[in-house]
């Protein structure tokens, strides 16, 4: 029984987080790029 529960939890919890990680790719740029000389990004469109 415990094994099944663990399996389900793993499936239901880890997978979404994993998916989320793949979706994210640090779009909030929380990690600082220590080699950067600027934090400006080029505007893709109007604002």
């Amino acid at each position: 029984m415990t094994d099944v529960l663990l399996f389900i939890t793993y499936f239901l919890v880890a997978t979404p987080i994993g998916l989320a990680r793949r979706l994210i790719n640090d779009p909030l740029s929380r990690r600082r790029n220590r080699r950067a000389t600027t934090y400006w990004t080029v505007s893709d469109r109007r604002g």
Partner: protein
Amino acid sequence: MPDLVLGISAFYHDSAAALVRDGVPVAAAQEERFSRMRHDSSFPAQAVRYCLEELGVSLSDVTAVAYYEDPRLKFRRVLATLIGAAPTGVTSFRETLPSWLRDGGKLRAVEVVRRELEALARGAVPEIAVRRHHESHAASAFFPSPYPSAAVLCVDGVGEWATTTLWHGRGTALTPLSEIRFPHSLGLLYSAFTYFCGFKVDSGEYKLMGLAPYGKPRYADLIRERLIDVMPDGSFHMNMRYFEYLRGQVMTGRAFERLFDGPRRPPEGLLTEREFDLAASVQEVTEEVMLRLARTAQERTGESKLCLAGGVALNCVANGKIVDSGIFDEVWIQPAAGDAGGALGAALAVAMERGATRDHVGSGRDAMSGALLGPAFDDTQIAAFLRSNEIPHRRLEPGRMVDDVAAALADGKIVGWFQDRMEFGPRALGARSILGDARDPVMQSAMNLKIKFRESFRPFAPAVLAADAKDYFDLRQESPYMLVVAQVAAARRIPVIETEETGIDLLRLQRSTIPAVTHVDGSARVQTVTAESNPAYHELLTAFKARTGCPVLVNTSFNVRGEPIVNSLRDAYTCFMRTNIDMLAMGSFLLDKSEQPAWSEESDWRAEIPLD
């Protein structure tokens, strides 16, 4: 056939409506002035109705509606934030998502705008265009400015993704150059300190700015080391470990408390030296970033003029530093630099695309009509109001009225001044103002306690005849919208011997011949007044100068603390009667407090108006 575009901002802070005719702003107002709810974020139905009525048109006459930000793009950022914060952000997730996804929620903002406009039953609703948040700011900063071309810098909390944007404005076009994205935001940095010092986010930032001159920037290095990494070009990266706004509904958490010597100051709690110093520190860092951003703007565009908008452009101390630096010959700041101005900007952006021209360029004037874009009341309406409410008053000839008010002011009286069209933007500019003698050493504390019923550390601001401004202030250019701070001129300063005064007691020391408007560091947030921008106000200042030799008056907004600036005649009379204002000048009518019947209200209005 005039081309009318209606701009709308709504659902976050400072809902507003603005009407642009052939590229020229002709009517604009914030909803809060009508609903009497400060920073009202609901759909600006009354403001829209006002704009249409001002021009005598219906929605069928309007060619396009422009909404000031992109809800779908914003939602993607909100979602990315919530997912990125998992699993710790689950409460925020649960609280935030429904407000977006429900029927009529924030994701469907454009649908809601359409529905609300239809509900006004003022004609057929035209197509609704969407303009991005920072584009709306940039348009509000550049298109009404007097310049044929300019660098444009918009700095705020956050729009959809962008928090800081740089543009090149030329003719009727705006070219985006670069941006900094959420969560890295100068506005949110300032808001974090606002929150930590016990003030309300989005409305308390200017209080923090007013507190800064009392402190020493002893935390500035810590801020630069741990909170925000600033590049020489002004771009920056924030260390999100210290901020809570990605995870939760507050700005700062325990890491911030550990860094800054203890828990946040509770709202309305005692102000200590730590808060003064935190304010001074974040202000110093903000100014440094703004100056570097300005320099980058100049280098990237090669322009000699700068246009500013976005909430951080309301930091008039930083604006003053930019002006003083000489990086640009001249700086123009949109009076409605916050989100209310987004309504105007979105409308202007659409108007320019539809072929409007900027005819005012080359005249040296801007296209904001002195920011007097709201409702006015003529003498017939005022007379009717006074008569039907049996309010004692005197009707005077225009010249006589100005003289009587000038005499009263010179006599130390406090006068409510209600003239012309209401201002658009957060500042009162001599249309809905409370005025006093700037030379009076007790005026500052009198106005604070008897009119505004507010904390006494906050200074008042001067209005001065534009032609005489340089005699009183070290100002390199005009400041028509009270968005630039300058030092009081040396000739007016009085040397002060500071003994043991600290904190708020510093305010009582007289530092100049215009003490009511001089801050503890000798600075003032100046409004320069020309006859063209506001004729009645200019006449009053001229009459006051003729009488006293001084062309400077205290100008504070006509409202009690916590309520929006007065809009209607009733709002004005109510504020007049609730406070210790001595006289009220409305149109050609003068009301004397001593002649008024006793004022009573059913409930305690002071308990009803939420503290700001």
